[in-house]
């Protein structure tokens, strides 16, 4: 419509409209050209988060937190905007406490690295056919620091009837980037994430304590965007609490689950024993927080920088695991 280099005449009102829309589309083109840059972009101008009706590249506005209105005289429950209920959580803690204390005998190291007020992304290794590390970490922090921990997990949980609701009430949140951002940046909460995902929990006993790939480094990008530190956590013990000896790919496909394991627990106690953990001693080491210098709230971050940070964090956790295994005298004591 507009040949390049020819601005055209915009005298009559009709074409001034056209000019406005043309200029807008030009801006979009420029913005897209901008996006293809791999270098970190400068802070963008603030903009209302209301979606523009005219096509524009999405930008994240800096939002103020949006606390839940109290409505105390109306509400009967205490379910927060994330679906977490402190009441349910405290019941869960009471039930889990004996297991935590006398079965796994969880031992913490460096818990002072976890902030008592501001938001932080807790990143840990993941293990056990039915992972036993998430409840242990959440329980330990909630009892010792007295502040909630939200655990990010797969969408899978949300479609499970009953279990999914319980999971949500106990602090589980689906791992959507925006959920993580809001929890960290706007609500300044502690968020626990396992970047290995099912690759970590689904690994065989012979591969224990060897970290799987850390996803695509999405967790680093979220922490950068939210402007919060990442706190790496190394957990020893979860691998031995429910070790996977074999996996059946065919059965997993049939059931539509990520992996179908045969665990040592099942061989010892029968199929129902698949739900019982072995009494491995848990050691949890909280490493030094990692702060990022990148400006928060950017549209995107340099892939190289994200992957560097992701690898670095993975390396630190791996190193800590090796160190803890070197000094571990017994798996059980």
């Amino acid at each position, binding site marked *: 419509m507009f040949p390049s280099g020819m601005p055209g005449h915009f005298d009559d*009102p*009709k074409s001034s*409209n056209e000019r*406005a*829309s043309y200029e*807008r589309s030009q801006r979009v083109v420029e913005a897209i050209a901008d996006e293809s840059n791999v270098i970190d972009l400068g802070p963008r101008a603030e903009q*209302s*988060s*209301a*979606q*523009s*009706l*005219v*096509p524009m590249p*999405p930008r994240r506005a800096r*939002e*103020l937190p*949006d606390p*839940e*209105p109290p*409505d105390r005289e*109306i*509400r*009967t*429950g205490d*379910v927060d*905007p*994330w*679906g977490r209920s402190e009441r349910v959580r405290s019941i869960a803690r009471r039930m889990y406490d004996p297991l935590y204390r006398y079965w796994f005998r969880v031992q913490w190291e460096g818990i002072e690295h976890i902030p008592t007020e501001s938001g932080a992304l807790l990143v840990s290794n993941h293990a056990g056919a039915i992972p036993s590390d998430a409840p242990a970490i959440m329980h330990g922090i909630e009892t010792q620091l007295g502040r909630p921990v939200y655990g990010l997990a797969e*969408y899978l949980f*949300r*479609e*499970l*009837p*009953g*279990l*999914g*609701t319980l999971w949500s009430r106990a602090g589980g*949140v*689906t791992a*959507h980037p*925006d*959920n993580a951002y*809001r929890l960290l940046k706007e609500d300044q909460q502690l968020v626990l994430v396992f970047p290995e995902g099912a690759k970590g929990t689904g690994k065989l006993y012979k591969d224990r304590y060897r970290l799987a790939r850390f996803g695509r480094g999405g967790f680093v990008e979220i922490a950068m965007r939210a402007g919060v530190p990442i706190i790496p956590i190394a957990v020893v013990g979860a691998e031995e609490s429910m070790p996977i000896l074999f996996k059946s790919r065919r059965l997993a496909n049939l059931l539509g689950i990520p992996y179908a394991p045969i665990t040592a627990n099942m061989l010892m106690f029968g199929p129902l024993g698949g739900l019982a953990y072995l009494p491995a001693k848990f050691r949890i080491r909280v490493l030094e927080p990692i702060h990022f210098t990148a400006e928060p709230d950017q549209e995107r971050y340099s892939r190289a920088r994200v992957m560097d940070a992701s690898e670095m964090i993975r390396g630190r956790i791996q190193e800590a695991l090796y160190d803890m295994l070197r000094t571990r005298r017994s798996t059980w004591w």
Partner: protein
Amino acid sequence: MTCCEHDAALGGRSIMRVLVTGLGTFWGSRLAQALEQFDDVEVIVGLDTNEPRLPLERTEFVRADSDYSILQRIVKATKVDTILHTHLLVDSTEHSNRRMHEVNVIGTMNLLAAAGAAGSTVRKLIVKSSTLVYGAGKRDPYFFREDMERTTPPHTEVERSLLETSAFVRDFAVDNPHVVVTKLRFSNALGDDITSPFARSLSLPIVPEILGFDPRLQFVHEDDITGALIFATRNDIPGVYNVAGRGTMPWSEICQVIGKRRLPLPPFFTNWAAEPLRMTRVVDLPPEVLDLLRYGRVVDTRAYRRAGFEYKYTTAATVNAFARSLRLESVVGDSNPSYRYERDVETFFRHSPAISREGNE
């Protein structure tokens, strides 16, 4: 409101001429009623094929189809500068798919074409849409912002037609940069006077739920819906905005506040299980409502508040107000006798010199 407050609210604004589509819907009538209170709103023209639901003082009712040539003539002849498009059907239990397509898609297309025709005086367009456009699925973010897309493809006609409508409105905004286009996406409505699948479900002696699911939900009070539309009429705030009461509540708690027991539907083949309820006309739970009862939906409402709109009700307050009106209704019966439109009487009231127009405020 006194007339002095009017002047302050006006802020030197000129006289407005407003066209309201869907005057025969509850919203259209409520809105026209509210608009009549403003002195600077000189003309209110209401379009619909159905008669207004509420008595109106000075709104002109035109029984018209959403036919393009008629709309174009009306827009041209009345020289309206503001169009309030409230005629989008969102309750799939009350309208057939075909009618929803006809009204939502074709009606909007014709209206926008008429509003964008050469020589059109329209300078503001406000569209009442629904948060149904976001859908409800397991991969959804916990809070939908206005710039977020739905995660599942639409699978019902109401969602499809609303999405198509969105595209028309966006195109209209691009083609007519001199028109202030505001699109409001309303959450589930509750109130004394409205019927929606949720309102009907909650009015039952036993309220349906999906076994094992307790979704987070939001509601918006009918007064806030009218208020939000009026706010967009009185202020220039282009863009898309979510409108829902602040806060969220799980379904179980909503039922508790209202004081109802829950009837669990099986979590698998839920749509089939809802069929007997549909057949016996107990309650119609269309697929988009079943999705909501499973996964829920919560939207981020900060943008519209930042634009200056003040809600009267939070989500919990909306539920509570609804509970109160249900309790009253259970004792007194229907507290809102429906209004019947009598054309001759209405014309008499609007135009006869015998009617005193003083002290109407």
